[in-house]
């Protein structure tokens, strides 16, 4: 999600918080990605489900922000997802309505509100009640696990990070040390083989064929291999010219040619497998960057300062009962805004720059912080009027 350019001279002069968001750019990006990825990839998946009589299965995690963009810019994308859900071979995954870091706030009420919003959205749009939860960027710790379990979910997805597994394999279902929940751990190396390395010519696995990939999976030990990746992998991060769609088209056939392999949705996975062991995650992990923690969004003091401002606005805002302001506040919670302020080292930093529309993290900070200052004023100004 992109913000408009906002200088200190705009602070206190904005008429509507919707002016913060660069709708033209957001529309343009969405349009491009929908044509390159969402629509063609959905068609391929629909064909595959049909072709293999429902034996090919898939799970989707769609934010409320994404759904809003679809509704506003290209409603046929929603139709296409509805078709997929109607096949019965698709699970929808719960997450926060906004792509936010609300799970890291001191108080988890806002997090729970955003999960409930998403729950209602899935019900309204797809008549679907997710059983498995995936947090923004797979951020996970014991506190989040406990909260999600208390909210009635049966499973949660996070990263199969070395630092929590040590010698153990991600190919089993685990249980949090402090809650009754099934944890599905992303197999990051097999997932990233598709997501990051598919078209990397220097990589020993190149070129990656469906046959080769199925063989790797067949040889891996364990109950389940969790492959999770950005949907934009198909057609956006990996362009159509790389052969990514052909790979996808051939994958089910190659996987199903092994007797001991089949596909499950996340719902089936938590039903089918019992936890093998417990995991204990006192400090938040995620699937981002090499560090697999939250330093991508909260790695420097500038990010912390913005995060604090944003969090502290919550209580005053909620008292006011102004849905428009609350909605803007939540859109400002999108983790992208903090991601652009990351000053992390060379290799990761390059990835950040690739996705950023700012010259550098400092510009990202100035723009975002200026907006937060304006927003803060508009919240307190109205307070004064009402008093």
């Amino acid at each position, binding site marked *: 999600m992109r913000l408009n350019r906002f*200088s*200190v*001279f705009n602070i206190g002069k904005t008429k509507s918080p919707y002016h913060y968001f660069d709708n033209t750019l957001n529309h343009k990006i969405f349009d491009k990605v929908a044509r390159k990825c969402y629509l063609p990839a959905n068609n391929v998946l629909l064909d595959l489900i049909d072709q293999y009589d429902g034996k090919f299965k898939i799970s989707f995690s769609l934010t409320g922000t994404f759904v809003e963009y679809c509704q506003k810019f290209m409603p046929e994308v929603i139709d296409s997802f509805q078709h997929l859900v109607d096949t019965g071979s698709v699970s929808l995954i719960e997450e926060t309505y906004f792509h936010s870091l609300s799970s890291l706030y001191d108080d988890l009420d806002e997090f729970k509100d955003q999960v409930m919003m998403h729950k209602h959205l899935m019900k309204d749009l797809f008549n679907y009640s997710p059983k498995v939860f995936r947090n923004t960027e797979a951020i996970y710790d014991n506190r989040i696990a406990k909260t999600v379990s208390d909210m009635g979910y049966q499973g949660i997805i996070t990263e199969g990070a070395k630092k929590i597994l040590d010698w153990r394999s991600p190919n089993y279902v685990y249980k949090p040390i402090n809650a009754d929940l099934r944890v599905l751990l992303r197999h990051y190396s097999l997932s990233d083989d598709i997501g990051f390395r598919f078209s990397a010519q220097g990589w020993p696995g190149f070129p990656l064929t469906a046959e080769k990939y199925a063989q790797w999976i067949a040889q891996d030990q364990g109950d389940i291999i969790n492959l999770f990746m950005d949907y934009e992998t198909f057609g956006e991060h990996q362009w159509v010219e790389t052969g990514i769609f052909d790979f996808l088209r051939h994958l089910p056939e190659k996987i199903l040619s092994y007797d001991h392999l089949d596909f499950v949705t996340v719902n089936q996975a938590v039903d089918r497998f019992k936890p093998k062991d417990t995991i204990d995650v006192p400090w938040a992990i995620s699937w981002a960057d090499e560090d697999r923690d939250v330093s991508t969004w909260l790695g*420097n*003091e*500038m990010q*912390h*300062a913005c995060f604090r401002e944003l969090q502290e606005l919550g209580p005053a805002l909620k008292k006011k009962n102004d849905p428009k302001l609350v909605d803007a506040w939540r859109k400002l919670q999108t983790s992208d805004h903090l991601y652009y302020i990351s*000053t992390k080292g060379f290799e990761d930093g390059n990835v950040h720059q690739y996705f950023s529309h700012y*010259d*550098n993290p*400092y*510009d990202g*900070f*100035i723009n975002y*912080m*200026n907006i937060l200052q304006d927003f803060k004023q508009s919240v307190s100004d109205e307070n004064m009027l009402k008093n």
Partner: protein
Amino acid sequence: MKVAMIGWEYPPFKAGGLGTHCYGLTRSLADKKVHLDFYMPKTKTTASTDKPFLRIKEVGEATVFPYDRPTDKEIEGDFFNSVYRYNDLVASKVKGNYDVIHCHDWLTMKAGIQLKEKFNVPLVLSIHSTEYDRSGMLSPNQWFIDIEKEGMQKADRLIAVSNYTKQLVVDKYGIDPNKIDVVHNAVYPLGSGKKQDIVLFLGRLTIQKGPEFFLDAAKKVLDYGLKTKFVLAGSGDMLPRLINKAVDLGISKDVIFTGRLTEEEVNHIYRIANVYVMPSVSEPFGITALEAISAGTPTIVSKTTGAAEAITNCLQVDFWDVDEMANKIISLLNYNVLHKTISKEGKREIDLFTWDRVADRTLDVYREVI
């Protein structure tokens, strides 16, 4: 390896980045056991060296300096003649068996070409600035351009202080890009001091350096209600105009013109400045940005500078975009965390800009032509 380097200024006497560069480069080359004779004009203060491999040779007196520009027709003839005279003098004084002749900028190019032809040794030319930069891209003087072009064509290899300058040399002078190496400048880090409410401009007060944009931004910052002084350190032909401008804008009580500062004063003001701004219209590199950052001072540079491409931890603006310049100054003053982060990260980054690296890269260039 024996190198004859021909320059124009050398500390303690220096007027700009060229002198700073020659000082750092020659000392680091000498440390790498390159025999170096540095030829320069006699100045009021005698330059000296403690490096056994480096000799400073003062030849004759010059009446012009690399940043001088003839202002009216009458002295033009004298100006040009004295340049020719000095080049002939230098060419006659350089004696010995050198492997490379290395010149800096237009002032000694004529001598460099003569020596290359006389001794049949390769000529390396460093480009620290061009006539297009010095004129702020407004009505550049053809006489300088012709000299620069001839030197660039006849030199065996060119060293540009930035990709920005390399591109300019290719575009404006028609030089083959394959003949040009880019070597970014370096700095001897200053270390930081206790910050005061000062936003600093430091450089010659000429059209190239964009001081009037600095004043326009100052007006906006002060109107916004911030309490800070704006210091313009340096002298130059625009000084009277700038003083009038500050008065017209009604900000003269918050603007300080220091005139030309001594080296010690310069180092001091870098250390105590809260923000440094380099709003140059066109700047091949801009060593002052490195100096300010090495003093822990968050720095805003214009995008049309070599510094902008070389330094990650600085803020960048278009020199004409005074609203954005003011936005960034205010942000640095209002958001402590931004000031702190950029100061810290900048100081860390600046450790990479060593004269040792410049000397290594320059040696690579020598080896290409020998």
